[in-house]
């Protein structure tokens, strides 16, 4: 799992530019699935056939990550940018970022600003070390997107790196595909695009799949750091079964089914009530005539920073839980 996570988090793929990460995932899973395709939006959809007696289940983990889109190159070669998804000022100051072609830069702000509260993204810039507009333009163009540059590190069984949101979820799906053998249900594994800008890929893929059940696999916040905002999710206490977030109230039967499987197999789990944010389940459950939906979340600290932290055991247990959910009959 560690190697897979390192590979996934190290691959470039901001919202709208998911080609490379899609290719990496496709290479990982091609031999383990019955069908695989990429749709108009860029969603990678893999199908694993069941024994014909089960349900159509859609699992979705988003491939995209947040990023910084270049909007202007000034005379001295500094790049102005706009956010792709939830880029915050505080998390970005003096972060290293990398473009698709490998160009690396540091993010800073107009130093005449005295009060940190006055720093807005439009008063920040990326410095790629270019000495002139021409030199910068040889490396990047307007519309190019950079992502946090943060190779995976290990620390006490935990992993720190960029884009855990949601490559951790992608890793869970990939590992589940590999471990899933005797399956009753027809399962569609969606590696969705553009979640960070509005759950867009999940919406169109859910429409085309028309599933009986939807399950999003994403990261969630924790409340276990010093003076954290109250939240009953801890790193290392097992995958979180979502109750609700800003985008969805999980279907009670889907949530109940997840809890039952975890209890039966003695898989540690926790219940997640996220007071803000959203995930692909928010789009899936409103598709067509409505789809009973839930979510399995990987607890993650420092979400949307260059250094997101997840726990290795949570990942292993997350895979166990997903395999258990999919292998058995799903009654709604």
């Amino acid at each position: 799992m560690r190697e897979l996570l390192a590979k996934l988090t190290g691959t470039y793929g901001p919202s709208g530019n998911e080609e490379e990460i899609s290719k990496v995932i496709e290479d990982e899973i091609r031999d383990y699935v019955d069908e695989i395709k990429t749709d108009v939006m860029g969603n990678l959809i893999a199908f694993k056939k069941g024994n014909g007696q089960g349900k159509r289940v859609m699992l979705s983990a988003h491939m995209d990550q947040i990023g910084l889109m270049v909007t202007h190159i000034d005379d001295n070669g500094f790049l102005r940018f706009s956010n792709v998804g939830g880029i915050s000022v505080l998390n970005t100051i003096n972060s290293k970022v990398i473009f698709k072609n490998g160009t690396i830069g540091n993010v800073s702000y107009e130093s005449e600003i005295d009060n940190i509260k006055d720093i807005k993204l439009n008063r920040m810039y990326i410095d790629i070390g270019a000495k002139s507009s021409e030199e910068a333009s040889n490396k990047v163009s307007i519309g190019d997107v950079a992502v946090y540059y943060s190779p995976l590190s290990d620390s006490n069984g935990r992993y720190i790196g960029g884009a855990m949101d949601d490559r951790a979820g992608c890793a869970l799906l990939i590992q589940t595909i590999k471990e899933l053998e005797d399956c009753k249900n027809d399962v569609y594994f969606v590696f969705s695009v553009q979640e960070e800008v509005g759950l867009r890929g999940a919406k169109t893929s859910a429409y085309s799949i028309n599933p009986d059940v939807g399950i999003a696999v994403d990261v969630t916040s924790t409340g276990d750091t010093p003076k954290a905002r109250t939240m009953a999710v801890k790193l290392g206490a097992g995958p979180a079964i979502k109750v609700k977030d800003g985008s969805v109230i999980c279907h009670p039967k889907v949530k109940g089914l997840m809890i039952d499987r975890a209890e039966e197999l003695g898989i540690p789990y926790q219940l997640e009530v996220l007071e803000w944010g959203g995930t692909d389940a928010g789009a899936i459950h409103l598709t067509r005539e409505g789809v009973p939906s839930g979510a399995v979340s990987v607890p993650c600290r420092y979400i949307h920073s260059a250094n997101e932290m997840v726990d290795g055991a949570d990942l292993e247990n997350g895979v166990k839980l997903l395999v258990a959910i999919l292998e058995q009959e799903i009654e709604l």
Partner: protein
Amino acid sequence: MVELLKKLTEASGVSGNEDEVRDIIREEITPLVDKIYIDGIGNLIAYKKGKGEDVKKIMLCAHMDEVGFIITSISDNGMLKFKPVGGIDPRVLISKRVYIGKDKIPGVLGIKAIHLQEPSERKNAVKVEQMYIDIGVSSKEEAEKLVNLGDYAIFASDMVEFGDNKIKAKALDDRVGCLTLIEALKEEYDHDLYACFTVQEEVGLRGAGVAAYHVEPDIAVVVEGTTCSDVSGVDEHMYSTIMGSGPAITIMDGSSISNKALIEKLKATGDAKGIPYQIKKGTTGGNDAGKIHISREGVATCVVSVPCRYIHSPSSVMDMDDLKNTIELVKEFVKGCE
């Protein structure tokens, strides 16, 4: 073309009340298309059959509606209280002239005189709640003879040609798009063309979602009037678009990320045909593409815009060449689609 733009921009078409604009467009395009109809929400959809084989469905989209006002109550002294429809900066409103309802009853947006305002009121920007529309009557009864609650009001603003090839008008957003679609329908294409003139964009892209669900296009091109902030007091990196630099191609905004292959196709078309274009730098805001690209299983969608200064005001300004080049780019793009 300038005459038609005048007719379109001066027509009344606040979101939810697009009839007058729709009638003008329908009259213009009926001879040009194979089928024309109005859907349940009010979108005007025109179908022009392609001449080729293995044709694709191309949807061109422009919204008919504009920002404006709706009358919400009539005071005892005959003054009208109102709410904005769509995004309007309240600071542009004071002393502007408006037309209310079908009969275009003239009115003036007023507020109590500056010497009657508290010092604290003078320091803050005026709120819509403090303003009223004065239609020159002195009682509620008189006002009720002329205006009904729920009537819409538009800015009273004639289109004017001025300066170096510039146009001043209200509602350039998005009558420039409507005009582009009308002009595009005058050509013949290999592919099936669906020109969708949508309603209620300014209040949440509502018509476009319905139209795209119905048309099920392979490709969609949204034609818009977009913000242009190339003015004094703005740092260059904050210019959204630059007037006179050609149609603006959107890479990303708040509602969609354009399909990359279509962006490349637009650029290649511009390069091949010698049509100038620019990449839009601003990434905020949204338009009909936001609903179209996530319709059903997803639609490859792009956005081409005419830069408009002072958008959503009674005096939006654009460059006539930008509009002409937008029309050319859209036409050539559709012709070159494979």
